[in-house]
């Protein structure tokens, strides 16, 4: 059964604040082989004008992926996660994520399309810091493959 397009615009409660640790940024950078000193050494990051080590560009996924669970687990949508594949991803950055940031994700359903027996749902996550200032926006398109 196709996803109900009237769910477009539905928003979810903000995620609990995610405290970005210096070691988490280092761990993430190591996992993707990002060796720039600004990801590992606070002094190198301070030389670029940041308070502490900065995260690589795709790090907001740590917040948006968790935030997306609200949509995937929404009983009204009844998404079969075993049929979900990641279709598209976009990030728009106000600034890099910095160790010490407390990030909150606010999730809204941006688009629902059904085509060729498959459903395509795009979520938008607005990521803000403790002061409520924007940090990044993430858009994730999930493809829910049709049965058969």
């Amino acid at each position, binding site marked *: 059964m196709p996803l109900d397009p009237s769910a477009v615009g539905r928003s979810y409660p903000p995620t609990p604040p995610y405290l970005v640790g210096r070691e988490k940024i280092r761990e993430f950078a190591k*996992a*993707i082989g*990002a060796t720039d000193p600004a*990801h590992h050494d606070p002094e190198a990051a301070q030389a670029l004008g940041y308070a502490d080590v900065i995260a690589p560009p795709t790090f907001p996924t740590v917040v948006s992926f968790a935030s997306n669970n609200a949509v995937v687990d929404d009983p009204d949508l009844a998404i079969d996660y075993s049929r979900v594949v990641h279709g*598209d991803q*976009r990030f*728009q950055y106000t*600034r890099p994520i910095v160790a010490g940031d407390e990030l909150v994700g606010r999730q809204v359903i941006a688009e629902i399309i059904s085509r060729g027996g498959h459903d395509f749902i795009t979520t938008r996550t607005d990521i803000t810091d403790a002061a409520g200032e924007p940090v990044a926006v993430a858009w994730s398109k999930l493809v829910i493959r049709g049965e058969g």
Partner: protein
Amino acid sequence: MDLPTKKFTVTRADLVRYAGASGDFNPIHWSERFATKVGLPGVIAHGMLTMALVGRAVTDWAGAPDAVLDYSVRFSRPVPVPDDETGTEIEVSAEVKSVTDEGHTVLAITAVCAGEKVLSQARATVRTTRLGK
């Protein structure tokens, strides 16, 4: 202008490390049994790992770790990762597509694995002075 091609290797160990670092523990990225059961050719890389590696190419080209303003990809094909020490290779290339009114550079990016395009419509907007170095 074409930018210098960059190559990245992905092994099973990289997938395990990325799962832990990102919090994405979907078994299609570590269990052959699970991956084949849901119709995949085998264990595949996280799309977000591919996006992260391509992101490294982008920040390298830009010459600054904080240069990326906007970055988007479409995951057009899975990246199967064999259970050996060699893993698989992703080759990343890009061309300068345009320069915005603000002086930002828009890159059109291609990522190829085993002769197949694994990302399509990949774009990054970067704030930069050192492109192509």
